[in-house]
């Protein structure tokens, strides 16, 4: 059981209300995408889940106990800065393993790290520094790390946001493969993105967040069968319907923002 319950969570930064009344339950093995425009607080919500910040009101529980700080029961992948640039790919994973499984032999850690790096296709990059790796390879290594420490909950903050389309597609497939590997013990995933198609491809459920303050605009189940093949998916009626629905909800939000009494004057008007 790795059930995550977010109940009545609000978060303010100074006098600025970032998130308001978020309620959300993730069952064990759920894959939830947090979808929303930038500034909607989706990354903030992930930070609350990670324990890097605490909700102003409300609480988040994992398996019944309240989250009060960071912990290795939740593995996190950020968009950048996941890996420490002064450690090789292997050393980065070994450091995490030492925290997760203390008291083992150095060589065990190294072997385990090498195994996970191989799993994500980085067998040639074991002793390379992050600076010597491409953006996609760095994210592979970061994914290898969270799977190595085997945390039941996975928090991913736009992990593929800085990658080109092809690399991104490869990494999405890799992530799904790893997540689906063990049927009975799937990790509970929270995946932040602003990419509608990415959300549909990955998620069981998509939570759309709205702006000012961040709040849940709607939760959409994705009933497309797995494994989802990208090329087939894009042709399916249900995919297209869901995409339109999501885009409409997202745009509603942006349009209502613009409605707020603002008139856009093209340059040169009124000469």
């Amino acid at each position, binding site marked *: 059981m790795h059930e995550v319950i977010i109940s009545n969570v609000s978060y303010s930064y100074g006098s600025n209300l970032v998130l308001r009344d978020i309620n959300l339950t993730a069952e064990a093995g759920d894959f939830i995408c947090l979808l929303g425009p930038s500034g909607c607080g989706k990354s903030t919500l992930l930070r609350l889940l990670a324990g890097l910040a605490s909700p102003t009101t409300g609480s988040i529980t994992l398996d019944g106990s309240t989250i009060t700080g*960071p912990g290795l029961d939740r593995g996190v992948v950020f968009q950048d*800065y996941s890996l*420490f640039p002064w450690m090789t790919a292997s050393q980065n994973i070994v450091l995490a393993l030492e*925290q997760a499984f203390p008291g083992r032999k150095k060589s065990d850690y190294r072997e385990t790290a090498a195994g996970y790096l191989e799993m994500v296709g980085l067998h040639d990059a074991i002793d390379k*520094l992050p600076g010597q790796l491409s953006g996609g390879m760095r994210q592979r290594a970061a994914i290898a790390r969270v799977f190595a420490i085997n945390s039941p909950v996975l928090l991913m903050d736009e992990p593929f946001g800085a990658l080109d389309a092809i690399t991104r597609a490869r990494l999405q497939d890799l992530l799904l493969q790893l997540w689906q590997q063990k049927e009975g013990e799937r990790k509970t995933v929270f995946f932040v993105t602003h990419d509608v198609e990415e959300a549909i491809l990955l998620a069981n459920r998509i939570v759309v967040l709205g702006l000012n303050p961040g709040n849940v605009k709607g939760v959409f189940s994705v009933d497309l069968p797995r494994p989802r093949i990208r090329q087939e998916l894009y042709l399916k009626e249900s995919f297209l319907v869901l995409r339109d629905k999501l885009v409409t909800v997202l745009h509603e939000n942006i349009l209502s923002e613009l409605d707020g009494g603002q008139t856009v004057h093209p340059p040169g008007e009124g000469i």
Partner: protein
Amino acid sequence: MKHIFTVSNILFISLLAAIFWPSAEQVPWYLLTVIITVKVITLLRIAASRNVQANLGANDVSAIIFTVLLAWYLLTTRYVVLDKMLFPQPEAVLRLFVAELPDMLKGLLNSLILLVSGYCLALATALPLGLVVGWRARLFHAVNPLTKVLGPIPPIVYIPYAIALLPSFRAASIFVIFIGAFWPIFINTVNGVFNIPKGLLDSARVLNLKERTLLVRIILPGAMPSICTGATLALVFAFVLLAAAELIGANSGVGWYIKNFADFADYQRVIVGIIFISIVVTAITWGTERVEKHLLRWRN
């Protein structure tokens, strides 16, 4: 043809001509050795590297050296235009340099003991203190005002008091070098901790590292670029203070060497001392650059 008529080559030939023409009665062998060594090193460097820009640079450096030597030789030896006492001949200086080398090396050992003691003491205290103060917000707010007041005091002003206060000249010098090296390392370490990208700290926090592990494996390497800047600056300060302390109160060492012979108006030896110090400083700078490159090899 272009490669033959370089400024460096023309100056090289001019120097040889000035030495051997019209007569070669007294060949300045030491000067000749230096000139040929410079030329050979330049040619070897150019042969070893394909970097056009760097090779042009090497050639230009040798040209500058040759210009100085040529002017020095012409104005003191060929035509004695400059005051003989203040501007000794290059050949005499070089011969004396070789003769004095054993004594100067012994003096250098004394100087280096002071320098290394003071500097290492500063490194051993300023670095851990800087890491902890940079990391703990409350400590920082307590210490920062003190840093602002004490940091900018030029350490040279401590010399007379340190000599009076401490039992020996050696202790006083080490103390002053320590003070001078302490602040640049401390301030840059604190800044280095501040400048670690927040994202990296988040990554460290989600791994639930113990504070000790965090400081040693994340904060220290994360602040290392800034620490290296501070440590290099501190080394320069340490050198200045070493020389200053030795000029004031030592009875051995490289600074004392120069001061002592200046008192006797032996400017030949003063110049020998200056050349020696510049070689030592160059060697140490080269060494620290290597260390820095190794420590920061992860930054591309």
